[in-house]
Structure formats: structure tokens, C-alpha cells
């Protein structure tokens, strides 16, 4: 059980941070009580993890063979990377930290599944790009039907509020299904957990983060989306959920934050306004390279540190 603590911590931090990407706007705008949002999010995260979490686990465990010690090291290294980068206010993606840590160990083992890694990196790049394309398509489609409804102010309000809750629940489902691999995949690779126990433990640890520590993040990060009009916020949420779900089916854990940024960019293109700053886009680029590099270095450092032996001279 002790060996799983790094993974549980990672899941907790993922739940605390990423729940804001699915229910942040509704909570920050006081449309949904935090308690309701947290219960819905944790329920759907667990459901997503249990029903569709296996594919991502298969991909991550296939990047390199790991023994239990290496699995623990990569898991702790990813958790430490996420914590350090969060403290330093640097952009961070748990998926990229986990892959970086596994790569660090893979370098040591001199055994990297290059096609598998290529697929993962291609999906990272495809996340914001896909979020943008899907948000443009969804915006056009939903606007077509929405504008044809003869609705009064209250009905328009009801439609958007309910849709935000439904889309938030779907987003939570996609988050659980996609990101559970980040939490426990390395332990499946090391033979410590079965697939079922991995998705269950991973889902529960993400839930723990949502239920205990996501409120502040939801309220602060959620305001970013509230600045969009409610219809655009709904489009962003749906686009994020769909792109994350697509990558779940492909079997690659991706960053929900980067999916959101891509979707917000797409809404900006439709409306002809600048919704995303250049700096935010730069942060994604930094995230692609810096996060895995730091995680790999930390994983290697931890591994060397725990394998240091006192050898008396002479």
C-alpha cells in the first residue's frame, strides 16, 4: 500500500486541479453549489475511470517495462514535478509529467517504445488543436438550433444552466476515463495492481482531490471561463469533453487544461475576438517540453538517490 502513495497523491492533486476545467465556470458563477458540483464530478470521474480507463493504462504501461521500485519512483517524480511547478506557478500537465517520469526511467532501462511515445506526443499536440476545431464545429451546430428556439429570457437561461451541468458531468466522465491512467498505470506495468483495481484506486484518488481540495481552484480558475458568455462557456466545456473523450478511446492521457485553451481559442476565432493571450499559448509549448524534461530529471535523480550504496574504500 505504501508503494501506491505517490500515485494516490498524484490522483489527489489531479482531482483538486482539473475538476475546475469541468465545473469551474458553473461554480464560480454560483450557478451550481460547490457540493453539488463536487458530488457530480466525483461520481462521473469514477464512472469514466471504471468504464473506459483501461485504454490509457495500456498505452502508458507499454512505454517501457517497469519494476515496482521504478514504478514508485516515476509516480513520486511526477507528483513532485506537478507540486514544484504549481508552487512556481509554471504551466503543468499531469499527463506530461507522468510520461516524462516514465521516460526518465526508460532512458535508464535503455528501452523506450518509440511508436508508443510518438503516438502520445502527437496526441499532446492534437489536444489544443482538436479542442479548437471541435469548438468551432460545435459552436456553429449549437448556434443553428439555439437561435431557432422561440425562447424567452428564463427559458434561455434554463437551457444553458442545464446544459452546463450535463456538459460538466460529461467532462468529468471524460476526465476520469482519460486521466486515471496517469495515476495508476505504472503500478499495472509493475504488476502491483490489476487493471480493475488500478482504475478503481485511480478514480477514487481523483475523487478525493475533488471532494477535499478543488473548491478554491474551481472558484478562481472557473472565473476565466465565466468571462465568456454562457453559450461560449458551454461550447468550450463540450469541446473539451469531446476531445478528451476521443483521446480516451485512442488510449492517450492528455491535458484537460490544454483542451480548454484550444476550445477557447476556437470560440475566439468564431467571434472574431482574441480570447487567448500569446503567453498562454507559449505556456502550452513550455508544457510540452519543460514538464516531461523536469519530470525525467527528477525521476532519474530519485532513482540514483535511493540506489546510492556506501562502498568502503580499500
Amino acid at each position, binding site marked *: 500500500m505504501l508503494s501506491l502513495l505517490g500515485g494516490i497523491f498524484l490522483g489527489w492533486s489531479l482531482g483538486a486541479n482539473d475538476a475546475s476545467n469541468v465545473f469551474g465556470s458553473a461554480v464560480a458563477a454560483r450557478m451550481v453549489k460547490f457540493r453539488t458540483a463536487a458530488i457530480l464530478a466525483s461520481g462521473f470521474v469514477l464512472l469514466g475511470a471504471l468504464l473506459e480507463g483501461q485504454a490509457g493504462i495500456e498505452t502508458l504501461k507499454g512505454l517501457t517495462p517497469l519494476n515496482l521500485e521504478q514504478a514508485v519512483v516515476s509516480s513520486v517524480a511526477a507528483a513532485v514535478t506537478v507540486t514544484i511547478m504549481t508552487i512556481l506557478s509554471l504551466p503543468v500537465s499531469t499527463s506530461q509529467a507522468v510520461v516524462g517520469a516514465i521516460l526518465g526511467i526508460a532512458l535508464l532501462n535503455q528501452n523506450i517504445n518509440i511508436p508508443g511515445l510518438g503516438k502520445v506526443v502527437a496526441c499532446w499536440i492534437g489536444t489544443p488543436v482538436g479542442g479548437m476545431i471541435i469548438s468551432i464545429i460545435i459552436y456553429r451546430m449549437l448556434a443553428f438550433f439555439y437561435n431557432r428556439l422561440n425562447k*424567452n429570457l428564463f427559458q434561455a437561461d434554463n437551457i444553458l444552466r442545464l446544459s452546463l451541468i450535463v456538459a460538466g458531468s460529461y467532462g468529468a466522465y471524460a476526465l476520469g476515463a482519460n486521466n486515471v491512467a496517469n495515476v495508476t498505470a505504472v503500478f499495472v506495468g509493475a504488476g502491483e495492481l490489476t487493471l480493475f483495481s488500478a482504475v478503481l484506486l485511480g478514480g477514487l484518488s481523483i475523487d478525493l482531490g475533488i471532494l477535499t481540495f478543488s473548491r478554491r481552484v474551481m472558484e478562481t480558475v472557473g472565473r476565466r471561463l465565466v468571462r465568456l458568455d454562457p453559450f461560449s462557456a458551454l461550447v468550450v466545456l463540450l469541446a473539451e469533453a469531446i476531445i478528451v473523450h476521443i483521446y480516451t478511446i485512442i488510449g492517450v492521457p492528455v491535458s484537460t487544461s490544454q483542451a480548454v485553451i484550444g476550445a477557447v481559442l476556437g470560440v475566439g476565432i468564431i467571434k472574431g475576438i482574441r480570447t487567448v493571450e500569446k503567453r498562454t499559448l507559449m505556456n502550452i509549448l513550455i508544457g510540452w517540453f519543460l514538464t516531461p524534461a523536469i519530470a525525467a530529471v527528477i525521476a532519474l535523480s530519485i532513482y540514483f538517490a535511493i540506489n546510492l550504496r556506501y562502498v568502503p574504500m580499500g
Partner: protein
Amino acid sequence: MAKLFFKKQRQVEALIYEYLEYLETSRKHFAEAINTCLETGVCDDFDFRIRLTHKFESKADDVREKIKELMYSKALLPESRGDIMGLLEAMDKIPRLFELVLHMIKTQKLIIPDFIASDIKELLEVSFENCELMIKQVKTLFERANGIRSLVSTIDLNESRCDHIERGIITKIFDSDLDPFQKLQLKEMVVNMGEISDQTDRISKRVNIISMKRRV
């Protein structure tokens, strides 16, 4: 389940209709007060009508506060809350104008000369028509989406007519032999009366924008 989910929203809706009723009642008492004034000058009945106008203006104010409290306790989307509050604040200026005009007549002991009485009646009739149309337009916003734009143009036309009547009255006042001080007093009263239709026009345009914002 849906009833429970939208309970606060339905309360807001009911309170908005209550607000509109008080606004209309306040307008009726204002109209009766002005008619009394035109027929018999400042008298007991006029004072009674002022009190009634104030009573319903005050009731409307209370309802507005209740709506504010309800909306900020998680009813409606933030954007809708802002739109409705802005609309109520704008509508609230109308009963205040009723009170202002009546108090001007009372405290400054204004006597409306006969040569402008019919014009004043006409100005107020058109302004009242605008008030009714504006209330209808606000109700339309909360009942269905269509029909708002056509009301905007009718209200706008009436507002232009009121401006024309207002200018005519002021010209007549300054062409008359009245005391210059009395001329200024009457001018101020007429300007405030004209402001009623100006305000309905502003509200009507605001309602149209709120409705257009619901299109994406």
C-alpha cells in the same frame, strides 16, 4: 424535480410581474393626480393622489430589492442577473419621475395655465402609451422572444412625438406674458414630464439588446 431546480427563478419571474403591476398602478395614480391638478388645481384630492403614487413607487422599490436578493442567491445565470437588475434600475426612474413632477407642482405651488393644458394632456397621454408599451415589451421578454423589435419602433416614434410636443409647450410658455420666474418653473416641469417618454425609449432599447444578446 425541474420545479424544485428552478424554484428561485420562478419566484424572480413572479416578483417581476408584481413590480410591473406596481409600476402601472403608480402611473394610474399619477395620471389621476395630474387630471385633478388640471381641473381643480392643488387640492386635498391631489394630495391624496400624491400619497398613492408614492405608496406604489415605494412598493415597487421593495419588490426590486427582493428580486435583487433572490437573484444573488444563485438564481439565474450571472449575465441574466446583470441584465434584469439593469432593467429594473432603469424602470425605477419612471415612478421617480412621477413623484418628482407631482412634488414640483405641490411644493412650488405651480398652476398650469390654460393655454398649455391641452398640450400637457397630450404629452402625458403619449408618454403613458409609451409606459404601457414598455411594460408590454418587458413582459414579452419574459414570455416569448418574438415581437420585441416592433415595439421598439413604436416607442421610438412616440418618443419623437413627445419631444415635438415638449418643444411646442416650452415655446408657448416663453412666448406668453407669464412672470419669467414662473416660465422657468413651468419649463422645468415640462422637461421632467418629457423625460418620462425619453426613459421609456431608453428602456425599450435596452430590452431589445437583452433579447438580441440571447441570439448567438
